[in-house]
């Protein structure tokens, strides 16, 4: 049996993510982005600076982290919370396999619901320069992957993962990042933008973090979060009594 991916674990995770009420947010946020993009496009026509404003202000700063929270924590948090993870753990399946599979699913879901709508919004907003659309889509995809790993870890570590994730997404990424320039160096959003600026050449996208540092941080955070989540699950104990 493969050690990184178990199809049954993946199926259960997909169903858990998309089959519950919280999945509505997964659909609602991209829809909102598209509606806003259409509205803005009708108001302004194709315009680089407005497009950048919407894509970085709403798509990357708000939508991507929120979807990351939903997908990352939703992939494992509820199961640990209600104890149904016991059915996965009491099987001859290695626990790192469980984590890796769940992470993969969370990443796919968040890339699907965050990066693809971002790309579409980019095209709608700015049909002329596809650099922008591609650049932001890449940034959204990269950020989604990092967020998935971070929030999956949160889902394993705390029962209040969603709230913690929201505080991070809304307060740290949106607010502090805008107010305190120094905080931007510690922001998944900025790292992703650094990568995007490389892809969307011509200065369409800019970041406060240099590319090498951004790549190192992105990869590092993703790996460390994944490793730590696997470790925590391995020693996760289910105390039956509440």
């Amino acid at each position: 049996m493969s050690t990184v991916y178990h199809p049954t674990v993946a199926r259960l995770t997909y169903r858990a993510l998309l089959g519950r009420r919280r999945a509505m947010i997964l659909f609602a946020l991209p829809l909102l982005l598209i509606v806003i993009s259409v509205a803005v496009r009708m108001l302004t026509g194709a315009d680089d600076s407005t497009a950048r404003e919407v894509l970085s202000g709403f798509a990357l700063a708000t939508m991507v982290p929120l979807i990351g929270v939903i997908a990352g924590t939703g992939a494992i948090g509820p199961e640990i919370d209600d104890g149904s993870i016991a059915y996965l753990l009491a099987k001859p399946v290695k626990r790192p396999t469980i984590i890796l599979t769940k992470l993969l699913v969370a990443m796919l879901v968040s890339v699907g619901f965050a990066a693809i709508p971002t790309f579409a919004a980019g095209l709608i907003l700015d049909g002329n320069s596809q650099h922008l659309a591609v650049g932001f889509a890449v940034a959204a995809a990269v950020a989604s992957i990092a967020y998935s790993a971070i929030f999956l870890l949160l889902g394993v570590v705390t029962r209040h993962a969603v709230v913690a994730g929201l505080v991070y997404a809304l307060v740290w990424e949106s607010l502090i990042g805008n107010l305190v320039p120094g905080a931007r160096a510690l922001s998944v959003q900025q790292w992703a933008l650094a990568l995007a600026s490389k892809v969307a050449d011509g200065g369409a996208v800019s970041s406060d973090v240099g590319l090498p540092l951004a790549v190192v941080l992105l990869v590092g955070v993703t790996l460390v979060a994944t490793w730590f989540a696997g470790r925590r699950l391995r020693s996760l104990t289910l105390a039956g009594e509440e």
Partner: protein
Amino acid sequence: MPPEPTAAVAAATAPADNSRIHDIGYRHYDGTRLDRSYIRRSLFTQSLRGAYGLGRSAKSKVLPMILFAVMCLPAGIIDAVTVYTHMTKLPLEYTRYALYLQAVIGLFLAAQAPQSVSRDLRFKTVSLYFSRPMERIDYVIAKYGAMAAALFILTAAPLVILYAGALLAKLDFATQTAGFGKGLLAAALLSLLFGGIGLVLAALTPRRGFGVAAVIAAFTISYGAVTSVQGVAYQQGDHAAIGWLGLFSPVTLIDGVQTWWLGARSAFVGNYGPPNAVAGTLYLLVVLGLIAGSFALLMRRYRKVGLG
């Protein structure tokens, strides 16, 4: 416990023999049983007090009390400035106050709406309420009323402080009273609208954390989306669009209503409020519709809950 009258009488008349064993077994209750309106009122009071942490643990008083203080503090400062610098009018209109401090109001709502309704759902206390003489509508009225009242206290208290300051500064009584009245009216509308939306979102989930998150997300995302698109419209000089866009978030809805109906200055970018009478009417209709809709949704939500 009230003294046993017969025992007291017996003791008085027979001082020599005052040893006895009182019956402390089960007693039946034949006193008054009050009606639904009393129950509704009791639940309203309890929930309103609960919104400020009264009658609950000391810990749960901290946040609402801090928010209340934060809400009132600027009003006090404005008063002081107005009185000591002998201004001729308040530097901030009554109707603007709540809009400036909308983040505080949002936080209060996000913290207290779930505590009011998701607790009952999570711990399944609702089934105990509905097994008592009240009806579903009593519960909804009491909870909605209490949330709106709590918000009204939060939004009206600073207005009272402003008004008191204005009178101390001997500003024009008629203008100030009119402004204060409009401010109160707008605060009432805001309390009903926010309270309704907050409770509907909170009642969706028994998890308090999710409720808090849902309320914060709904208010900040809608407000953020509306203002950023309004910003784009402003850059493009499309002033009518600014006015129409305000229909899509709770805060801007209140702004639009008070701009059109109460003659307030709009806080929209460039101060462009609802562009015409149709828009103005629509603002009011949407607000009233949302209030009625929130009530209806709450009623529907609790129809399914039952004894759970």
